[in-house]
């Protein structure tokens, strides 16, 4: 692996030195800082998953050059890495310093890929955050986010957590029923990715979709009402937990079936590209994010869509929320190669692995992947290593998982980590964060009250929206809408 990491570098170096005169390290300001920061902190604190870009063999390495360019002394001060415990990584990804240094080198914009020896398949990494940033980064403190961004991220994650906890309470009180799947522990991925999107960008999710909808902008009231099955819910109470849709915010659904959403997301990305290129709407650069889990990566639909997306360079990012468990099946037992990010280059797109418990790292990778898609460079496969703190669903007693594993990940709670980061870097005070906590509690309480007071859908809604005619099966012989005919309760709906 270390060898192949270096392969790419020689191809990039000539182009880069021609375009960017500044010394290397400063090119990689914000994004690299987080990556490099854990190398430069104590050796024991190597995080479990620095972003690793699947290599693509091309030509020979030049290790020497890299070592000098990346000497630690060039960085005056590094911000604290968010997650410093990483000993028991179930996915043992080799994290020695040299291949890592090699991989960061790849965060270079392939400005003119024609010069490079990399042929058709751009399996390696590509986008980097703007070169513009390097001018600002000569200050001693290289922070990844501003105060406003930090508070926004914190608020979104706390909203996700508080909402899910309230869902659990409501379920056990019988106000919510059906199958409910909670997102506790994975908030960093939702926040890290979705907060970078515009309103017209689309999100396609799984059955664990409450927090994706919330991050995208659907109000907590609408989501809670939908869970209660009330008519004010985002789908008018039709679907419930696993079916969060929003036309206004372009949430294309939660999907109960695993892998069913990926073709839908691919289609949404296709629409965007079609609009841009065939219908000539030049400013249409909508990106689609498809979220799915580790179990889905063994599903045929996933591979078919990777192929199509790479073939047509669709503006889509495939985000794998690898929480190591597919209901009760351990990912390692079910998959021939557990490193999912490697499946990207097999189809001709970059595959990235990132620590999904750290919202800042996820955000940095997301920026690049979404940027790539927006510029029309094609799809990316991002594997986020994360964990769900609760069981698969509220009906799952969660007895199968090792308590040591749970404790390990509980220590890497993304909200606690972000809080620590904000406070230690003086971006926010305890008081600010407490104020946000309180505000979110009120929002969630209010959402529950709203949902409680909302009406249950009327009986006529049952026959609506089966076909395009919103009133159900049209007008009956008596001149009334059939769905309003009281006789429909007799058990047959004659069309």
């Amino acid at each position: 692996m270390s060898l192949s990491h270096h392969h790419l570098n020689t191809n990039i170096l000539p182009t880069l030195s021609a375009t960017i005169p500044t010394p290397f390290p400063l090119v990689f300001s914000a994004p690299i800082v987080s990556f490099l920061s854990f190398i430069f902190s104590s050796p024991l604190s190597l995080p479990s998953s620095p972003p690793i870009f699947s290599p693509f063999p091309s030509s020979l390495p030049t290790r020497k050059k890299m070592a000098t360019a990346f000497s630690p002394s060039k960085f005056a001060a590094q911000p604290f890495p968010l997650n410093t415990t990483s000993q028991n990584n179930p996915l043992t990804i080799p994290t020695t310093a040299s291949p890592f240094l090699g991989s960061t080198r790849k965060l270079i914009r392939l400005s003119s890929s024609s010069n490079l020896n990399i042929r058709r398949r751009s399996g390696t990494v590509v986008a980097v955050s703007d070169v513009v940033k390097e001018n600002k980064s000569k200050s001693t403190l290289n922070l990844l986010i501003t105060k406003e961004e930090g508070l926004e991220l914190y608020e979104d994650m706390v909203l996700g957590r508080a909402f899910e906890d309230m869902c659990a309470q409501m379920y056990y009180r019988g106000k919510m029923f059906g199958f409910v799947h909670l997102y506790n522990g994975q908030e960093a991925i939702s926040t890290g990715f979705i907060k970078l999107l515009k309103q017209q960008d689309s999100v396609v999710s799984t059955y664990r979709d409450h927090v994706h909808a919330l991050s995208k902008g659907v109000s907590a009231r609408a989501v809670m009402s939908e869970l209660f099955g009330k008519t004010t819910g985002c789908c008018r109470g039709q679907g419930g937990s696993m079916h969060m849709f929003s036309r206004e915010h372009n949430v294309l659904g939660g999907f109960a079936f695993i892998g069913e959403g990926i073709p839908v997301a691919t289609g949404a990305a296709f629409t965007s590209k079609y609009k841009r290129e065939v219908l000539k709407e030049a400013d249409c650069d909508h990106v689609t994010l498809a979220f799915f889990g580790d179990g889905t990566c063994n599903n045929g639909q996933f591979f078919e869509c990777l192929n199509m997306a790479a073939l047509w360079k669709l503006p889509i990012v495939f985000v794998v929320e690898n929480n190591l468990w597919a209901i009760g099946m351990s990912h390692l037992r079910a998959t021939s190669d557990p490193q999912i990010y490697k499946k990207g280059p097999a189809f001709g797109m970059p595959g990235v692995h990132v620590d999904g418990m750290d919202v800042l790292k996820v955000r940095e990778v997301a920026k690049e992947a979404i940027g790539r898609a927006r510029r029309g460079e094609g799809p990316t496969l991002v594997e986020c290593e994360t964990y769900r703190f609760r069981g698969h669903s509220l009906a799952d007693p969660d007895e199968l998982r090792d308590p040591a594993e749970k404790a390990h990940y509980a220590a890497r709670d993304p909200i606690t980590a972000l809080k620590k980061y904000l406070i230690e870097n003086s971006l926010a005070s305890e008081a600010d964060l407490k104020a946000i906590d309180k505000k979110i509690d009120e929002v969630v309480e209010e959402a529950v009250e709203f949902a409680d007071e909302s009406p249950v859908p009327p009986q006529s809604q049952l026959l609506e929206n089966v076909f395009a005619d919103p009133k159900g099966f049209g007008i009956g012989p008596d001149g009334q809408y059939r769905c309003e005919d009281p006789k429909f309760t007799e058990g047959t709906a004659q069309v």
Partner: protein
Amino acid sequence: MGNRAIAEIQFADYIYPAFDQIVNEAAKFRYRSGNQFNCGGLTIRAPYGAVGHGGHYHSQSPEAFFCHVPGIKVVIPRSPRQAKGLLLSCIRDPNPVVFFEPKWLYRLAVEEVPEHDYMLPLSEAEVIRQGSDITLVGWGAQLSVMEQACNEAEKDGISCELIDLKTLLPWDKETVEASVRKTGRVLISHEAPVTGGFGAEISASIVERCFLRLEAPVARVCGLDTPFPLVFEPFYMPTKNKILDAIKATVNY
């Protein structure tokens, strides 16, 4: 006998990705290879049917799709005792069988099940309640609902004969026909949507065979023609009252 493969699909709603392989391969292997190969007596078990809180994708009844495929068998038990006997028969049957288990019964049904090995015959329907006014045909969890309706109808003086089909494909036409010849009326009930549900096949076959004997049109009390709803499940389901109404309408035709 050799080893038998038994596959489980966690919810019948999720069987559709496998539908292609079941219908195009498992059902046709023996046929298209001229009996040189077969799929080894494959049995596929899947929980199906409403459970009260399942929503769109945990409550579907896809038996009608499979009943349209020549080459496989479809079996549905109504109780634990039946389930054991029928499942053992399915496993030992050399043909591919899809065995749907009503998930409603998983937590609710309580029955004495013999511990020894026993098999119940496939393709034989069972008359579980004798009557003389109307024949009710059903399968799976719906039978308990129909039984309640029968008890209520009894109070109104209507004597109902209740038949459990057990095997939907190939189904026991003789037993049902004999019963209809006795009563002259038939009502079919299932949870799947009414249009194209298996009740349609039963209705058409009975009319073909017993047209002159029938005193009233064949009644079907089934789910509505919508995707399985979440909140509206009580309205969607063929409940006891709906069945009772239909029994009375048929008897008073």
